[in-house]
């Protein structure tokens, strides 16, 4: 009897296991299984969470440092940010944008709008590696150091808080960030645990990198997917433009906007290589802007000759082309590391790389009960094994979705729903 009995038992067990595994999968609706496609295309319209679009953002700029901006970057003297105020007392949340993005970038404002709908005053901040931040708020002018960027952010946040305090009734402080902004948020939170200026009630990290260096290496490599290498960049760009153009011609009422991107994908039917190079391109533009801006700030001589002064009228074409051919890793090795080493003799490359990592503040993050994480198991900015590091580090405070690539699912019901259940001004202790 026993021998006959094992089979149904195993089958039953298998069935039960299938149910067990299938349950979370069916509960999570995000459909795009290819992480590169997810990253580029985002969330299909029917699955988008209804986040209000009529949030009364006000745009402001604030002087953070005494330093004068160089002539060619005169317009970035002040740090730009935006805020939206609730009527009456409410907690305030800062949101930090991802790699090189502005305070009002679509993802940062999406997060801000969602939090606003939940009853927060919101302040949206640009990325510390964005050109505006580098000029207006980075004390060294050389961004990328995890702790330095956090200190710069912390200073800017206090200045903004002082500016807004007369206008808003603030009951508590919260902090959130996505992508590199989440990495920054972790370090700001680490700083705040010591200094307690804000004493954040809760911190939410959305899709952070674990080791900055491994993520930037992955991103730099994505552009190597351009057929024929970086020197064929122009041909690659033309191909993208042609595809967009074809989509534009084929459609009657399509405007020159995001919708067009989706149509272009229908025309192109892109391979993963092409998608990867598109993602790489977006980050390459961010790295070009950052590296050149920083170089102008310090006259280091990375791209611009150190003894050349740019006027407001200077043609920057050649610098633009050079900057577009250099990656984050070039910035790290030929500029960031030598610059750091000149301040700290004896600093090795591997030490510096080690320092730019969440693992460095592992002790803090393990014990920080108010710091939460949302991530995707297939995020393209993570190296193999890194999602496990995060799961282990955050334990119960981690929500890991099985699909979504890098921020592709951010607009979905599931993602927004989780964001708002973590950051709930009513529920947090």
């Amino acid at each position, binding site marked *: 009897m026993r021998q006959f009995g094992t089979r149904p038992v195993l089958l039953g067990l298998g069935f039960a296991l299938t149910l067990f595994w299938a349950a979370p999968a069916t509960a999570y609706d995000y459909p795009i299984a290819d992480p590169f496609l997810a990253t580029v295309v985002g969330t299909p319209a029917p699955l988008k969470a209804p986040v209000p679009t009529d949030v009364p953002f006000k745009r402001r700029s604030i002087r953070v440092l005494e330093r004068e901006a160089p002539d060619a970057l005169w317009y970035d003297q002040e740090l730009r940010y935006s805020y939206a105020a609730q009527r009456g007392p409410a907690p305030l949340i800062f949101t930090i944008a991802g790699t090189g993005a*502005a305070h009002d970038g679509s993802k940062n404002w999406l997060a801000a709008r969602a939090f606003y709908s939940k009853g927060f005053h919101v302040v949206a901040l640009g990325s510390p590696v964005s050109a*505006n931040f580098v000029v207006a708020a980075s004390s060294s002018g050389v961004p990328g150091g995890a702790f330095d960027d956090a200190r710069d952010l912390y200073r800017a946040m206090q200045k903004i808080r002082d500016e807004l305090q007369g206008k808003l009734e603030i009951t508590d402080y919260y902090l959130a960030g996505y992508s590199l902004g989440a990495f920054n948020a972790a370090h700001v939170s680490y700083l705040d645990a010591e200094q307690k200026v804000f004493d954040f009630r809760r911190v939410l990290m959305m899709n952070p990198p674990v080791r900055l260096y491994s993520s930037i290496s992955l991103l730099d490599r994505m552009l190597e997917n351009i057929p024929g290498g970086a020197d064929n960049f122009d041909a690659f760009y033309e191909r993208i433009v042609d595809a967009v153009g074809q989509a534009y011609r084929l459609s009657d009422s399509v405007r020159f906007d995001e919708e067009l991107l989706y149509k272009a994908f229908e025309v192109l039917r892109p391979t993963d290589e092409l998608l990867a190079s598109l993602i790489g391109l977006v980050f390459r533009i961010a790295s070009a802007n950052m590296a050149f801006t920083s170089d102008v700030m310090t006259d280091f001589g990375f791209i611009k000759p150190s003894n*050349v002064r740019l006027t407001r009228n200077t043609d920057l074409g050649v610098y633009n082309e050079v900057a577009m051919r250099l990656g984050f890793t070039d910035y790290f090795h030929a500029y960031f590391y030598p610059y750091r080493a000149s301040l700290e003799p004896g600093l090795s490359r591997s030490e510096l790389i080690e320092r730019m990592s969440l693992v460095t503040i592992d002790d803090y993050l393990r014990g920080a009960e108010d710091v939460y994480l949302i991530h995707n198991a297939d995020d393209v900015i993570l190296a193999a094994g890194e999602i496990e590091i995060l799961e282990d580090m955050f334990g119960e405070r981690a929500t890991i979705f099985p699909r979504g690539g890098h921020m592709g699912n951010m607009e979905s019901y599931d993602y927004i729903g989780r964001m708002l259940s973590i950051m709930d001004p009513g529920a947090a202790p």
Partner: protein
Amino acid sequence: MRAIGRYTGSLALVLLAGLNAGCSTAPIIEGDEPEPPVFSAERVLQPGVTHVGDVYDPWQGFNRRVYRFNAFVDRNFLLPVTKGYQAVTPAPVERSIHNFFTNFLNLNTILNSALQFSPRKVVQTTGRVAVNTTLGVFGLFDPATRMGIPQHQEDFGQTLGRWGVGPGPYLVLPLLGPSSLRDGIGAGVDWYVNNRLREEIFAPETWHEVVWTTLFILDTRANVAFRYYETGTPFEYRMVRMLITTKRRLDIER
């Protein structure tokens, strides 16, 4: 009035040539030679290759100045006034004003679609105007979009492009923004045509024209999301130049 217009045109071109001569786009070198940077153009770029960002821009010195002037006017005048306009105008009124201008400008689109020998665009746009002028009460509402009639936008610059005229040098027009010599001339023709159409249809008095122009400027600005120096790139001038040039090329091919 019209003669003045013609003279202003030639005067502008002369001025442009003169102004450009005085605007160097070169940097200042401290010392005899630039210190070679870690990544010099010689090291990184292949010689003799043209780049996508390279648009024919012989008047760059002038263009950059006008770009900054436009930014200044936009930031200190146009944008604040537009914000005020949006704040005091109820959203449905704002939408109706926008619909009205779109409907009126469609007359110029019909004309240019005809000049481009595109019966499809002529028919569709005529349909739009007919529906929106009648059912849509003089264009204040836009039932045509709900009926699925596509909205085209054709101007004389595009018509010239269709006829095989290249864009010529890149040109940043005072107040109007990035363009090209061809499209700048096209904009002049469009302006003239639209004025004539307005006269023929509405026979406006001077104060009508003032209200019209004011609202038109406000509505146009309210519907453009662009903000000078907030694109996040130190290469903004070049990026805008590339995008506008590409977009116009696609508009013409369309």
